[in-house]
């Protein structure tokens, strides 16, 4: 068959190639800055193609990885524990709310969803965490987020659970199974698709969380990655003055430290892995979005 040139399609491709470049060039710039010679930055500023390459910043970070490792450890701990607690609490309440025969369904629904409509705001929450519960400088300050039980996530889960056939629950009850057994050995495995999507959504929130860290964490041994980035942005000499970082490297003179490229290096090492990990799960995202949109 004779093939015609498809001009509209070509235009669309051109358009999206331009958009893709627009999306990626900022990342290329940051990567390039991290491997640019400090003297070259001082002379020419940031460039997409550096005047002279230099990997000193990476060498410093590899020599003294303690600071970054610690921050990674805190972030991973907070993300894992927070996501687990959050999903457990939300799955349990979503199951209860999906049971139309539950006597206190209306009251419980109201109690959970009212928090979406009205909240005390920043200060009362701050007072609760800092003054009443004394959670300053503890990992719990970063785990017990206001969104640990998130009404919209509960709603997505409940909607999904209501699509499961009631008969399985009925027959399990006939066999004399208790509710918690039904929940853990029947409901949890059956709702795996919805739980995977929620795991993704919740873990991104925990991984990127910075406000609670800024509000409650002063001890630099408990700094998560995001707080490290906040401090480094506010103070460009943060790395040089951090004892955890400095103690790991033999330092001739402070003047030779590549301040500007090292900032971007740490930013890349802190954020980069997520940009590789999350797109892998893209298809679960799509699945979850379709789950959320079928609302009965």
């Amino acid at each position, binding site marked *: 068959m004779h093939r015609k040139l498809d001009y509209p399609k070509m235009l669309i491709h051109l358009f999206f190639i331009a958009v893709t470049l627009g999306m990626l060039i900022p990342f290329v710039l940051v990567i390039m800055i991290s491997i640019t010679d400090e003297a070259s930055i001082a002379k020419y500023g*940031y460039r997409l193609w550096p005047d002279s390459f230099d990997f000193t910043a990476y060498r410093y970070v590899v020599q003294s990885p303690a600071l970054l490792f610690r921050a990674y450890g805190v972030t991973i701990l907070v993300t894992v524990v927070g996501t687990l607690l959050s999903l457990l609490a939300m799955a349990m309440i979503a199951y209860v709310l999906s049971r139309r025969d539950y006597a206190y369904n209306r009251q419980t629904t109201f109690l959970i969803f009212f928090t979406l409509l009205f909240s005390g705001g920043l200060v009362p929450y701050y007072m609760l965490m800092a003054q009443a519960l004394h959670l300053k400088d503890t990992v719990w300050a970063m785990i017990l987020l206001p969104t640990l039980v998130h009404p919209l996530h509960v709603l997505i889960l409940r909607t999904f659970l209501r699509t499961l056939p009631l008969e399985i629950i009925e027959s399990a009850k006939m066999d004399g199974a208790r509710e918690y057994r039904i929940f853990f050995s029947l409901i949890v495995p059956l709702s795996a698709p919805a739980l995977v999507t929620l795991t993704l959504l919740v873990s991104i929130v925990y991984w990127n969380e910075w406000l609670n860290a800024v509000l409650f964490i002063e001890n630099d041994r408990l700094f998560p990655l*995001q707080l490290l980035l906040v401090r480094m942005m506010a103070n460009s000499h943060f790395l040089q003055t951090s004892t955890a970082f400095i103690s790991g490297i033999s330092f001739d003179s402070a003047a030779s430290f590549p301040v500007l490229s090292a900032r971007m290096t740490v930013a890349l090492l802190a954020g980069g892995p997520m940009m590789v990990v999350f797109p892998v799960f893209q298809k679960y995202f799509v699945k979850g979005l379709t789950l959320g949109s079928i609302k009965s």
Partner: protein
Amino acid sequence: MAKHRPGIGRGMGLGRFAKKRWTVFQKNKELFALSLPAITYVIVFAYIPLFGLVLAFKNFRFDLGIFGSKWVGFDNFKFFFVSDQAFLVTRNTLMYGAAYLLGTLAFALVFAIMLNEVAQRAAKAYQTAMLLPFFLSWILVSYVTDAFLNHHEGYLNEMLKLLAAEPVDWYLEPAVWPFILYTVYLWKTIGFYALIFYTGIMGIESEYREAARIDGASRWQMASRITFPLLMPLAAVLLIIGVGGLFRGNFGLHYFIPNDSPFLYSTTDVIDTYAYHALRKLGEIGMATAVGLYQSVGGLLFVLFANYAVRKFSADHSLW
């Protein structure tokens, strides 16, 4: 059954009531137990803080505590509303919010329809590229914007120098910031919303498209007469959810991307950043609480309005 037990007179009404409640509870106690962790959590972290809202009407002193501090009536609100700050940050919050909402929805809708015209493999590659910034935190994004906007080394100023133009100190120029913030917001979120619409298109695809194709509809006709109208309900739902959240500013975006530069507050400050400054920089606990309360009440009104609008539009999607 207990309630039909003979020999219990009228005087026992209360006991019978309690007994009935007790049987209901006995029947539901296992499910109740399952709901307890979440209920306890929201009571502690969402309901108990509501009592803290009294701070909006008090002159808080740490030594006197929440309940010991003196009542000051509406002084904290007066401080906020008498200055032009209240108007400024409310205007910024609402206008930025509306622009973000309409912009992402319109662009994402067009992007998704265009993506649908190319082969699925290509569409997936473009989507992955567009989705990358979505996973970053705002603080990380601020490193990217700093690479462009920094006065001394920024890429934008290097470009200006190449064009023999004067470099600009972007963090001192409030007038350009609506444009910068809007661009950064679109860059970060457009991929996510385009994905939502693209998924929506996949959902409607098969039935209607086939019929139209058999009838000999052109691609343009299919996009404009079938895909676009069928995406409208999804767009409307997203719009209404967005309207409900308009009173909440985008804290991370408005705090980190302008580098918290005080010179830019006139065009970048939103209610959230204002309350944060009141708490952290000024230590004005009473005023920060008052601003938070103002935001919560405003937010509630917007949600009620949005839900009312959904009910008019399609009762299926309203929250209650």
